[in-house]
């Protein structure tokens, strides 16, 4: 398992390095804009670099999220898959390593960009001379995500947890759809369309299930925890089905 995890990280390393590189360049531009180009934080360099940073953070986290689906697809549909499937590791281990890597990378990337954003916003407001504005800004931002949430560590954690859990559920659904495509529909007509429809259907099902577990008598944070737990269970079921299909039917 350790070896599988190591190589899942290694396979996605180049792309992560690139995202980090872009973020570093934009951050450098941001700092330059903030401290070198006059007192006015409204200068073009700061504005553009802030935008780039924002899109890198957003796009980077999304890309890292779907990257495991892309590598799984490559591992099942190209010659490099021999590398993975010739090892004495079963499908549960192979898929497990992919999901763990994905969850961990996502968490790391999320934390990284969150801290970077936090740092930059702090610097920006400090430069503008009004640090108190920062907290208003953050509260506004969180309120725009969920109106019932007030800013405290507990709710932020619950929110992060639920986002990660529902992402894992989505990734495991994508895994299953891609595995079904490669293992069962391989060479068949409309393979791509069918597996995509399958993916959509599973997502609709997942959302429906999640809705069944939203209770009016429970606090917003409580509902987030329940939702997270349901998403994790759903992801686990998808994982087991995926691994079983892969073990029994996949040919590379």
């Amino acid at each position: 398992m350790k070896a599988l995890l190591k190589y899942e990280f290694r396979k996605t390393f180049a792309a992560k390095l690139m995202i980090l590189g872009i973020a570093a360049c934009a951050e450098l531009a941001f700092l330059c804009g903030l401290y070198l180009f006059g007192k006015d934080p409204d200068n073009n360099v700061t504005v553009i670099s802030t935008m780039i940073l924002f899109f890198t953070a957003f796009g980077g986290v999304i890309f890292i999220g779907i990257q495991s689906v892309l590598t799984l697809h490559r591992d099942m549909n190209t010659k490099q898959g021999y590398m993975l499937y010739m090892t004495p590791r079963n499908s549960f281990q192979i898929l497990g390593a992919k999901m763990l890597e994905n969850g961990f990378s996502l968490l790391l990337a999320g934390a990284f960009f969150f801290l970077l954003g936090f740092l930059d916003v702090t610097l920006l407001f400090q430069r503008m001379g009004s640090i108190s504005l920062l907290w208003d800004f953050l509260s506004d931002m969180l309120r725009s995500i969920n109106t019932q949430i007030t800013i405290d560590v507990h709710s932020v954690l619950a929110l992060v947890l639920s986002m990660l859990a529902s992402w894992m559920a989505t990734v495991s659904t994508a895994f299953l759809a891609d595995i079904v495509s490669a293992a069962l529909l391989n060479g068949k007509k409309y393979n791509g369309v069918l597996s995509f429809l399958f993916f959509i259907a599973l997502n609709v099902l997942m959302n429906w299930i999640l809705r069944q577990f939203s209770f009016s008598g429970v606090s917003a944070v409580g509902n987030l925890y329940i939702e997270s737990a349901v998403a994790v269970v759903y992801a686990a079921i998808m994982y087991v089905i995926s691994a079983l299909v892969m073990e029994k039917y996949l040919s590379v």
Partner: protein
Amino acid sequence: MLKSNQVTRRFGNFTAVDHVTMTLEPGHVYAMLGPNGSGKTTWMKMASGLMKPTEGEITFRGEVIGVNSRRHITYMSTEPFFYSWMTIRDVGKYYADFFDDFSPAVFDGLLTEMELSPEMKTRSLSSGMAAKLKIAATLARDADIYILDEPFNGIDLLARDEIRRAILRRAEPEKMLILSSHLVEEMEAVADIAIFMHKGKLIELRDLEEMRQRDGISMADRYRQIYGHVEVDAQ
């Protein structure tokens, strides 16, 4: 002992391997022969556990081919399959990480013998070098069965001698080697039993020295007899 029992593999309407039944024993070098599309690669992939039969099964020491048999059976495909970000040294590390029977010392020895430098990137290798690297990584394992698909493909005459020597050094009495090649002459002296396949079906298994002694014909002669006017694609 490797048993193929009524093994069949279909791709849609096309039957790549058609009810192949045979028993292969350790201590032999098998030459799997047949024109392109006769099912050699598909059978080899099934024996390595990379592909699942549509019908029938292959067993190794009584156990159906699967995750566990990958510990004992090593497969080398015709095409290069290493991750493009790897250096030759990374390939060795990868094998060492996953296979208990992999010997880094044997791997290094083979690299030296084949004049491959560990720092080279796999994606920058010439086809001949890539073929040598595949051989080195595969043969550095101390496996029970070596399945090599077209080990002489795309390799010049001198390198072929090196590869033949490396393969023969692994041909120990308790090991089994299965090689496929469209270069039939290349296999004459190396193999002792030929497996002739045609259109997915097993035609026959022949002991080559016995055939030369009794019938006075070579493996290539028998190949011509079996496939006759069948167009032999030289790739």
